[in-house]
């Protein structure tokens, strides 16, 4: 139990770490392709070893055929008519068919000796032995060292091969090295999850980490940790009852975690996208209120009601939200309540509101004068863009259209720094 747990956690760490490299190459299913292409290699290794299960020959054959598949894939991709999905699909089925052919032929003559190899396909969920831990940890160590030493060059070999060639590095070497590591990782995880599911050890943790962080280097760490987590969960669940295979349980744990991360995770998940949208809406609402308040302040109309504040913006139709925003403003000393339901800007609020109006009017001036938009339509456009302009862009635009008045003849408030 402890050995299996250690093995699963180590494999999860390894798969999570290396899987990101595949995901970045936009070939999430490359791992799947390689795990299918191990099959004919295993058979050839079996034949070379004189129809016995000699691990050395099996590993040799399998890694050779997986590398061959990988090289074929690169080569096919370089030619014109094929995209990565087609090449992967063709290689998966082609290599698998050759493997199936060999297995079919071999099992007629050497059925009993072959039994173990067939188990590699579905994964026998056999318990990991202590002797298996050592190669896995060595491979993990090598991968960690490899990725941390060559991190920048690895990333460049995926995203910007031209630059890497320019600085006299060889991008293909890094690709080949990372592929070799992935092949070995697949081979060591064969026993645990089986060839078809081994690829998911590479894919699922990396896919989960997409929703955990926008930063690449953190994604590597997170996906390794996720791999360890699902490895541990799967092993624990499979120890709960009879006939619960470890491999499929690990994958199902991974799937659950993926769905969880995709709905609740901190980056680009459904929840975080929703929250961000809400936040943005709130900011727009507040800025609309401020601009309306400044409009009345400019006219010296005194305190105004909530409905007055809403009347100036076409997109603000939500009374409770406006009241909430006003309460927030009262706390921050931007508005003051003169009489019940009657609000006016404080001195501090006036400066804040002025900057928003400034954005609105400068944008209006800009698109009317430079882009030739009619003044009527300029207002609608400015209602949108006023929320997205920052001070630096504003100054640039101001230099382009040096003016004191906006298209509707109103004065453009000056920049704070310039006024003094």
């Amino acid at each position, binding site marked *: 139990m402890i050995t299996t747990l250690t093995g699963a956690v180590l494999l999860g760490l390894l798969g999570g770490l290396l899987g990101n490299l595949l*995901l970045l190459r*936009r*070939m*999430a*299913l490359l*791992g*799947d392709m390689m795990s*299918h292409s191990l099959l004919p290699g295993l058979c050839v290794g079996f034949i070379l070893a004189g129809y016995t299960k000699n691990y050395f020959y099996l590993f040799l054959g399998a890694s050779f055929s997986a590398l061959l598949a990988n090289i*074929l894939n690169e080569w096919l991709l370089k*030619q014109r*008519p*094929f*995209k990565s*999905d*087609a090449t992967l*699909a*063709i290689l*998966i*089925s*082609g*290599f*698998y*068919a*050759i493997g*199936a*052919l060999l*297995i*079919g*032929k071999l099992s007629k003559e050497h059925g009993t000796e072959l039994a173990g190899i*067939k188990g590699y*396909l*579905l*994964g026998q*969920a056999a318990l990991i032995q202590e002797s298996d831990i050592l190669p896995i940890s060595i491979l993990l160590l090598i991968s960690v060292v490899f990725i941390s030493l060559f991190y920048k060059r690895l990333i460049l070999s995926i995203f910007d091969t031209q630059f890497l060639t320019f600085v006299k590095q060889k991008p293909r070497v890094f690709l080949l090295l990372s592929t070799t590591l992935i092949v070995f990782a697949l081979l060591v995880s064969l026993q645990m999850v*089986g060839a*078809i*599911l081994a*690829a*998911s050890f590479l*894919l*699922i943790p990396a*896919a989960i980490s*997409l*929703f955990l962080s926008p930063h690449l280097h953190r994604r590597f760490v997170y996906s390794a940790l996720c791999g360890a987590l699902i490895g541990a969960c799967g092993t624990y669940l499979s120890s709960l009852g009879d*006939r*619960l*295979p470890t*491999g*499929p*349980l690990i*994958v*199902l744990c*991974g*799937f659950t975690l*993926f769905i969880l991360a*995709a*709905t609740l995770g901190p980056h*680009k*998940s*459904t929840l975080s996208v929703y929250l961000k949208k809400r936040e943005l809406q709130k900011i727009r609402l507040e800025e609309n209120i401020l601009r309306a308040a400044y409009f009345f302040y400019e006219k010296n109309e005194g305190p105004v009601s909530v409905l007055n504040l809403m009347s100036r913006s076409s997109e603000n139709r939500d009374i409770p939200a406006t009241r909430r925003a006003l309460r927030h403003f009262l706390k921050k000393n931007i508005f003051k309540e003169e009489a019940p339901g009657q609000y006016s800007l404080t001195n501090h609020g006036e400066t804040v509101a002025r900057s928003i109006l400034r954005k609105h009017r400068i944008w209006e001036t800009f698109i009317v004068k430079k882009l030739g938009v009619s003044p009527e339509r300029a207002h609608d456009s400015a209602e949108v863009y006023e929320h997205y302009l920052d001070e630096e862009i504003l100054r640039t635009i101001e230099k382009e259209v040096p003016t004191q008045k906006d298209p509707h003849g109103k004065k453009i408030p000056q920049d704070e720094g310039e006024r003094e």
Partner: protein
Amino acid sequence: MSSEFVIFLTGCSVALSAVILGTYLNISRQSLLGDALSHSLLPGLVLAHLVTGELNPTALFFGALIAGLATGYVIEFIGKRFRVREDIAMGITFTAAFSLGVLLLVRYANKSHIDTDCLLFGNLLFVPLEESFFSFSFLKHIPMTLFQSSVISLLSVFFYFLLHRPFMNLLFHENSFKLSQLPGNFLKSLFLTLVSLTIVFGFKAMGALLVFGLFVIPVGIGRIFNKSFLGISTVGFCSAILSLWIAIRLSFNYDLSPSAAWISLLFVMFITVFLVSKIPRRRDRALKEHST
């Protein structure tokens, strides 16, 4: 009918629908959908078996069909809802479905007759031994799988003749599809159903993963020569038939699994044709350089 001929006919009819549907998959860059669907049939089959408690062909058929359709929709849902790339969505969905199938199989159906060998490798040689769907006149000599696969290949041909234009619009030009006022989701489901059905009927004869090969490799061969849809499918279908015939001869003589031999042969053919297709181009280039 001789058994060799029956095997040949079955292979042809599976190949026909697989090549037509595979061409759509190839041009819309979704070749791996076949891979995903062929893996995810397993839970459907196991569940159908567990629910009915026997190997009822109708139940198995519906189980596999529902599993195939569900996978297709889950892939689309994950891709769109969570905004991940389609290959990631596919990889995650089908490995999860496949492991669910293995889990159910090992946990509840250990002593059942679902043979993973059959799912993985299939066997064309058993097709002539099957009982017929009909029990009268000459039709009773037609084995079940042959009947099913010829029906589905007819449906695929109909799909091509009737719905080719709108479906291409749906794939590549959504605005003009909207003009035609056809139900897009229905068309997508119809296509997904056809793909799942081809795999369901094919897998008994060939093994699920090998049917998937039939979707992609002949189309790959066709793609080397041709750009038009009809050209790709025709060349693909011809190469599939040719290699099927050779594979049957080989497997009878050397005692091989015909379906695995078929796909291996197609793969070898693909690589050879691809290599050969590169040679004249190089000569052309040399001639061009010589003349300038």
